[in-house]
């Protein structure tokens, strides 16, 4: 898979997280076919921007902020 730009990665991550209730970073990386370390970085940015939030249910998940 061709290397994605940061913007493309953001878009893909948000698109995926909009489809699911919650996900682990690893699941996101697998689903969009990107390296986990790249996904981690973008998820961290999105969390700092208050677009994503973390959820703890035995282990930690990430989801779009406010999404039920």
């Amino acid at each position, binding site marked *: 898979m061709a290397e994605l730009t940061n913007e493309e990665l953001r878009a893909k991550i948000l698109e995926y997280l909009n489809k699911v209730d919650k996900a682990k*970073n690893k699941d996101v990386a697998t689903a969009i076919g990107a390296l986990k370390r790249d996904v981690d970085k973008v998820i961290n940015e999105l*969390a700092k921007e208050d677009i994503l939030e973390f959820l703890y249910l035995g*282990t*930690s998940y990430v989801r779009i902020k406010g999404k039920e």
Partner: protein
Amino acid sequence: MSEKKRPLLEELKKGPWPSFVKEMEKSAHNSKTAELLDLLERSYEDKTGHWKHGGIVGVTGYGGGVIGRYTDLPEEFPEVREFHTMRVNQPSGWYYTSDALRTLCDIWEKHGSGLTNMHGATGDAILLGTTTEHLQPCFNDLSEAGFDLGGSGSNMRTPSCCAGPARCQNACIDTLDLCHNLTNTFQDYLHRPSFPYKFKIKISGCANDCVASIARADLSIIGTWRDAIRIDQEAVKEYAAQGYDIQGLVVDKCPSQACTYNAETQEFTVDNPNCVRCMHCINKMPKALRIGKETGATILIGGKATIVQSAFLSWVIVPFMKLEKEDDYAELKDLIERIWEWWDENGKVRERVGELIYRKGMREFLKAVGLPPVPQMVKHPRANPYFFWWPDEIISSASGDAEAEAAAGAEVEK
């Protein structure tokens, strides 16, 4: 203070030991704390906990540091309907100034119940009991005062270390500097949970392991030395002159029989190549024996309490690492990142790195992170090596070394 009787909690105050109930009652003028005690009494009556754990609570941009607590009896106990915990990243070695502690307590009286736990098992200052609406303002005040939140959830937990060279002559490494450095370097991993499960780093300055890293840390960093124990023979003679039983209390208790004592000449010697650096002799005769000069650390992995698999002590993966301040601990940080990468790639949800190594085998782990097998990697000391060669690394003799091939084969099948 609530006028309710709490007969079951009264039982917990009996006996010679300190009681957390007594301590909490000192704060029971606060209606939240009083209700907290009432709720606890109720839990003992019902023989079940009345807390719901988890959910979404936190501060902007962070995924760790706040643990959501809600009671399942909110109508009955409205004051503790929300009773969230905040974890505050402790300073290295838990050195606070009085001013810093007062500031922390003032912030917590303003935003929470005032109850604290100094410190939690991970090391953080634990602030117990606040509401969702107070979380962000409390975090803002903490940040303003120079505090940061610690870790919670599936992330790197707040690294912790022993008192180190600040007040211990046995410190082989600067635990305080290393802990601070690792915390700052890996802040993103601390604040935003992205691992399969928690990952704890604990640093002890010597094998006395005052922070119990070997039992409680996924990555244990334990100070050690690789040259010789320094011996002051005059001080040995002084111990002998005072009637100290050097043979019985020191030599006979050496786990690798590396110590010898000549009662006639009153000379103490150590067979350094056979010394396992356990610190026993140094602890028993601190005026006569000292750690070596060429210091560094042993790196171990996999310690944890019983959750999925049984309790594990951590295992040696690097017997000696120099830990250079000058290059910003690059070798250690590089190793940590390689470990995380392998664990992230292979770990199941809620699987600690030690459990993953147990499942996949030490051989897989070492190959993945690029470490060589060494004799110190044993499951049971002096008995049971748990590294098996890869089949392609075994050179069979012309007649065939059946035993070696069988051993390799057994590991492959496993």
